[in-house]
């Protein structure tokens, strides 16, 4: 049997730690290094407990072990990824970027994975992007000339960490750019709400579109197909309002529950971006196996 793709994680916060759990479950991936800064963080302790090599030397640890690594998941910050991405390229490592840096090509596995396999840096857009872009793409595959497309996500306040809170503007810009380019809409808009309700709400995402003569039957078919495809790598993805025309706008709505691997299950917003990152890494692993 072909060996698994050797991956490393840089950034051992909540996202990085949850990724680790998902990697160890994958048939195609193994984790050979968790690099961060604080050996006492829960993530580092968890990795050590799973007998995964850990290092507090962050990017330097990646440089040192580059020969044993095929792919790096970057779960640091946009700021750090600007620097890290150059180093990954020099080292010949594939980078999967979970920060909102927008350095690499935007990757939505259910939509453009094939086009991404020649890239060396993939950007996982945003949580709202991973939830909404496939829907926008499905809508665009049936309806030509989308005048305007919009996506609204509501997430549990407790699932929005300090980085999300400080980077709301970047989230909106990146999601807007993503939804626009994948749907070829003339204009786009993204909205994000943090809901503090207790018990915590699941992530919910709506896509609304202005289309001159929408094909509702075709849209419904395309959306159902897309949702089925997404569910293969995001088990908690669920269609809750089928495409409908209301007040002259096309509307469709989904809910995303997390797997509860390390992050709580209401944090579907964090889970979905990790699920997408794993799907992307597995695609690289499968491609290599065929080569």
């Amino acid at each position, binding site marked *: 049997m072909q060996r698994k793709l050797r991956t490393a994680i840089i950034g051992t916060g909540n996202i990085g730690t949850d990724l680790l759990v998902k990697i160890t479950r994958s048939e195609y991936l193994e984790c050979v290094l968790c690099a961060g800064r604080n050996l006492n963080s829960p993530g580092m302790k968890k990795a050590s407990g799973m007998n995964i090599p850990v290092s507090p030397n962050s990017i330097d640890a990646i440089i040192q072990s580059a020969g044993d690594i095929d792919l790096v998941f970057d779960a640091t910050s946009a700021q750090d990824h600007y620097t890290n991405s150059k180093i990954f390229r020099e080292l010949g490592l594939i980078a999967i970027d979970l920060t909102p840096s927008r350095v690499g090509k935007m990757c939505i596995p259910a939509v453009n994975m094939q086009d991404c396999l020649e890239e060396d840096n993939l950007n996982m857009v945003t949580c709202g992007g991973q939830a909404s872009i496939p829907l926008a793409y499905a809508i665009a595959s049936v309806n030509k000339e989308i005048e305007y497309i919009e996506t609204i996500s509501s997430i549990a306040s407790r699932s929005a960490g300090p980085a999300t*809170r*400080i980077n709301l*503007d970047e989230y*909106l810009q990146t999601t807007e750019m993503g939804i626009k380019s994948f749907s070829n809409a003339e204009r786009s808009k993204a909205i994000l*709400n943090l*809901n503090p309700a207790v018990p915590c709400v699941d992530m919910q995402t*709506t896509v609304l579109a202005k289309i001159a003569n929408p094909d509702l039957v075709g849209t419904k078919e395309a959306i159902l197909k897309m949702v089925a495809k997404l569910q293969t790598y995001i088990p908690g993805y669920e269609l809750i309002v089928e495409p409908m025309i209301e007040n002259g*706008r096309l*509307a469709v709505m989904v809910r995303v529950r997390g797997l509860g691997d390390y992050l709580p299950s209401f944090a579907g917003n964090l889970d979905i971006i990790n699920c997408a990152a794993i799907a992307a890494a597995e695609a690289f692993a499968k491609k290599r196996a065929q080569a």
Partner: protein
Amino acid sequence: MSTKKIIITDPSLRDGSHACSHQITEEQLLAYAKSADETGIDYIEVGHGNGLGASSLQLGENLIEEKRMLQLARSVIHKSKLSVHVMPGFATIEREIRQAMDIGVDLFRVASHCTEADITMRHINYIRAQGKEVWGILMMTHLATKEVLLEEAQKMQSYGAKAIVLMDSAGAFLPADVESKIGHLSQHLVVPVGFHAHNNMGLSVANSLTAINAGASIVDATACGFGAGAGNTPIELLAAAMFQLKLDSNLDLYKVLETSDLARILFAKNLPFSNSTTVVSGITGIFSGFAKIVERVSKELKVDPKDVFFELGRRKVIGGQEDLILEVASELSKKNN
């Protein structure tokens, strides 16, 4: 009552946007702003109901583009100051805030849900650094205790907000709530405290006066209550009560009354009123901006808007989650059939 001067903010051309599903016309805007500018109102707020960048399919699109709206207002507002409402999650610094600054907006009221003040840090910091006036707004404040509200207000104060306004966005406050929450903030904050009422229970004027009595020095009021749901504190009634109570402000009572008479004609078709829906909206604590959308969606899907409000209340939805109206209504309609 206190002898300090009360600052009056008039968001008729912002909160009123909800009342007419964001269809304020250029003529209405110009006529109202011109007239209000003569009344001694300190700040006139203009824009989409949910503030900068909120024109959307989810909430309803503006009839007049945001840029044009602000330019028009700027061209006729000279004595009052021009204010905008800013909600991070809708508005971004790069796009909406910069544009509003270029047009010459005087005051930015940066708002968040009452427990999420930290999302306003960057926006408040930025505006303050540009030398513009910035306030912090906490919305849906019936959903948090006075202790939580103080914590969140203190965050905004530490970012540089020069005043904090509590919004009773759902019209759910009783006078005792106003007294306890506004009183607590007035006691512990360095910056002035304000109150923004909705009239779902017919308490907007009483609540505004209670707020002043409890230490508020800023009050929001709109002409004929022109605002979301059952409307806001009617400025003509507030001005009259303040006149009787000898509360000091820059308002000229006659001019306020005249402006309200004008508004009654200008916005005749969309002036807010109480009905069973606005009452249920108030007691279930739902954001007043939901009213028009709930009405429309309920009619379309043939469900009782009151049921929709109760279900939304059970789900504890907050401002900005208007898309859930569609989900709740379609679920109810499935159940009914």
